[in-house]
């Protein structure tokens, strides 16, 4: 067996260990300081909101209701609402959606504003949307406006629509089929799509009317 290596002088080894120990503790201290700093460093507060039209999704808006009366979104303050865009010459999707919303609201058993905004202001004046809204046997607010007002509100709510010429000179309108849900604070909360089952839709309505 080879002779054991000459041990390093005890003093040097002790000093090395001591240095290593100091270094390690310094590292620990540094980590603690860094961690503490991260925790306590003041973070910038929420950014101040820019002008409402740029950042907020939804209102405020002013349209025209049945009978030509102006309707302001301010009148909704404190009340949750659902808003759906369609047109009265729509034979299938629009009545189906509104009928469904009326039925769900009845199941919900709580007050809920249902707004119907036309994407066809040329044919749907206040009388048309007013009468159409009465079809469903329960409060539905029918809204219209000038083409410019409707375009503006469509933008605010991210709504798409497009005229499609039909046979015989008439036209249909392709349009967003999603229902938009807003809570008491007027904040956008969720959507309901036509394909969604009733239970999921009802749960969302419960959330905004809580």
């Amino acid at each position: 067996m080879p002779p054991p290596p000459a041990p390093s002088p005890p003093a040097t080894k002790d000093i090395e260990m001591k240095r290593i120990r100091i270094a390690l503790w310094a590292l620990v201290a540094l980590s603690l300081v860094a961690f503490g700093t991260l925790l306590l460093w003041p973070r910038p507060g929420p950014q101040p909101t820019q002008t409402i039209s740029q950042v907020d999704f939804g209102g405020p808006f002013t349209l025209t209701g049945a009978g030509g009366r102006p309707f302001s979104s301010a009148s909704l303050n404190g009340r949750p609402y659902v808003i759906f865009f369609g047109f009265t010459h729509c034979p299938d999707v629009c009545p189906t959606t509104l009928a469904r919303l009326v039925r769900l609201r009845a199941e919900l058993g709580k007050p809920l504003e249902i707004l119907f905004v036309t994407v066809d202001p040329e044919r749907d004046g206040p009388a048309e949307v007013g009468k159409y809204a009465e079809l469903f046997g329960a409060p539905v607010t029918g809204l219209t406006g000038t083409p410019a007002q409707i375009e503006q509100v469509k933008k605010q709510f991210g709504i798409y629509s497009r005229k499609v010429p039909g046979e015989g000179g008439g036209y249909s309108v392709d349009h967003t089929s999603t229902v938009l849900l807003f809570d008491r604070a007027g904040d956008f909360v969720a959507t309901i799509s036509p394909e969604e089952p009733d239970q999921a839709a009802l749960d969302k309505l419960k959330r905004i009317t809580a």
Partner: protein
Amino acid sequence: MKLLPWAIAALLPLASCEDPPPDLSVSNAWVRETVPGQTAAAVYLTIVNEGGSDRLVEAGTPAAASASLHASTSEGGVARMRPLSGGLEIPEAGQVTLRPGGNHIMLTGLGLILRQGESIILRLGFERSGERTVRVRIVDAAASGAEPPGHQGH
């Protein structure tokens, strides 16, 4: 080849073995009530076929200027409606249901207000079965399903 006429003769019986005649029953035809000013409405119904395939190719009613098959689609959150210009196939031993959000017969140029509880006559034209006449009942607008008003859930 002498064999050819025999081959043709052997296959001929197969040619006569075409679709059996269709055997259609139309039921549960309904339409929502309308308000003055509404010019369009959608008729929904069910066709049960216990025979060979057929095709629904036209429709008409005294209640409206025109009646035509349309398909509603909702893709990417956008609702569209397109005419089914080729008609609608009624498969052999099958069933077709026109329902809200799907295929329907669109009435345009409504000549009268559709009132709940009343009915209108709808004429359906099938490629093979010819003409059928059905009574379409007018239901409460809050009705969303083929079941009578008041039915909850599916």
